[in-house]
């Protein structure tokens, strides 16, 4: 379980987030919802230990230790190294974690994931030769290859157009359902949050409120088609708009 206890973050002497408390159960997905600039990415940066914070971030009751726990982070712009081709980008994470060359088992795992995410035709291309959708699939392949304990997705669909987004959503859903990963997904899109998450963490007033996703019991792939979906989305929209307006 990933636990955030009284986490406060200051940047340039300005308090961005105050006393955040959040529990994310193993193998579940929590969506962090909030408008732009509220501190969603800052929260992820703190979990990644990239910025200082007050309070504690725990993994199964122990202090989160990136030497022991593997975090796969998919940033908004996908974080691909432009000078490496697709295959090298995907395998880089494992090379870094293993501090060694890839063994045959790792190579097979990479091939499997490249097949699953339909990347076999583009493995020798460089990131600047890829479309937004392809870049996103590469970033996801890179993340899933690591078999991470925690997957952090920062606005995973924001750079994609509507048509590509639908395919990307389906691929991610399939991938998440086949893996046992604790996932934190940052989004400002409530529809995405309702489809992907078990719980919603609504950021407002520098802190957050944890809610169970009302659609939790329905399989993610069927949620959008569910009769309650539109109503739940509308209610959630009203609720968060009220919260953010006061902000």
């Amino acid at each position, binding site marked *: 379980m990933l636990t955030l206890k009284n986490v406060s973050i200051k940047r340039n002497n300005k308090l961005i987030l105050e006393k955040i408390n959040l529990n994310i159960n193993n193998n579940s997905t929590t969506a962090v919802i909030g408008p732009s600039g509220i501190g969603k990415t800052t929260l992820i940066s703190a979990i990644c230990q*990239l910025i200082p914070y007050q309070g504690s971030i725990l993994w199964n009751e122990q202090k989160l230790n*990136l030497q022991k726990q593997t975090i796969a982070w998919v940033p908004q712009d996908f974080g691909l*190294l*432009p000078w490496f081709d697709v295959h090298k980008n995907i395998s880089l994470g494992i090379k*870094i974690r293993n501090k060694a060359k890839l063994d045959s088992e790792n190579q097979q795992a990479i091939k499997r994931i490249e097949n699953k995410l339909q990347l076999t035709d583009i493995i020798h291309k*460089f990131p*600047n030769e890829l479309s937004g959708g392809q870049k996103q699939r590469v970033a996801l392949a890179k993340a899933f290859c690591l078999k991470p304990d925690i997957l952090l997705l920062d606005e995973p669909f924001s750079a994609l157009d509507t048509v590509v987004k639908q395919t990307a959503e389906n691929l991610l859903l399939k991938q998440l359902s086949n893996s046992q990963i604790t996932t934190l997904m940052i989004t400002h899109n409530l529809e995405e949050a309702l489809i992907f998450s078990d719980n919603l963490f609504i950021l407002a007033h520098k802190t957050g409120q944890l809610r169970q996703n009302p659609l939790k019991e329905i399989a993610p792939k069927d949620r959008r088609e569910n009769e309650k979906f539109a109503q739940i989305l509308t209610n959630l929209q009203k609720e968060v708009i009220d919260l953010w307006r006061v902000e």
Partner: protein
Amino acid sequence: MARRIKNLLIAIIILNIIWYVIALAINKDILPNPFSVYAIIPSLFRENIGLDIYASVYRVFWGLLSATAVGVIIGIMIVRLPKFGRIANPMLYFLYPIPKISLLPILMLFLGLGEKSKIGMLFLANVFQVIVSVRDQVRQIPSDLYNSLDVLKASHWQIFKYVTWPASIAGTLSAVRIELSASFAILFMTEVYGTQVGLGYYIMDEWSKMEYTKMYAGIVILSIVAFILFIILEILDTRCNRWRKKADPLF
């Protein structure tokens, strides 16, 4: 490729026509026509102009290589070691605009008139450009790229190998390409003293003997050598920086 060769040939033909017309119009020994210059080139190789070519290429090679090695290290250090950068940057801005050729007398005093001052001059002429170019290239690396490796607890060496170094290669090659023509200008200046070998020396020697056809042949050979080096750098740039969006070819 075929199109590029065709464009190159057209450019060479046009240059030669212009040269030929001007030579006809002037009709003096100080500007022989291109055919008489090209005709003399094979005989120059029998007279050992190969040794002059070797000496010039040797100086340019070591000048550029030492400037690149030092420039890359300092360029990276300025960005990755902020304390060093805060001191080195103002120094760089102070030294960068100085016309490097004006430092030649100082180099001659300290390094003598031999090879050291010639290579030293080429080093000075290039090193600042490489530092600035590598510094700017490394500075442009988005912090997310470093962050994505930090999250995986990459070592300093891995961060250098996978992020900083590939980015700096791009800066290095573009700097060296930009500076290549300046390097040959500097080379020419350094070969007029303390040596009896090198294309600069050869050209000035033939000039002093009023052997204008040979002088022009030396200039043509110098241009061809510079052109070949430029093409080699372009090939290196294309191979090492395949990831960048393809730039328009030079011709």
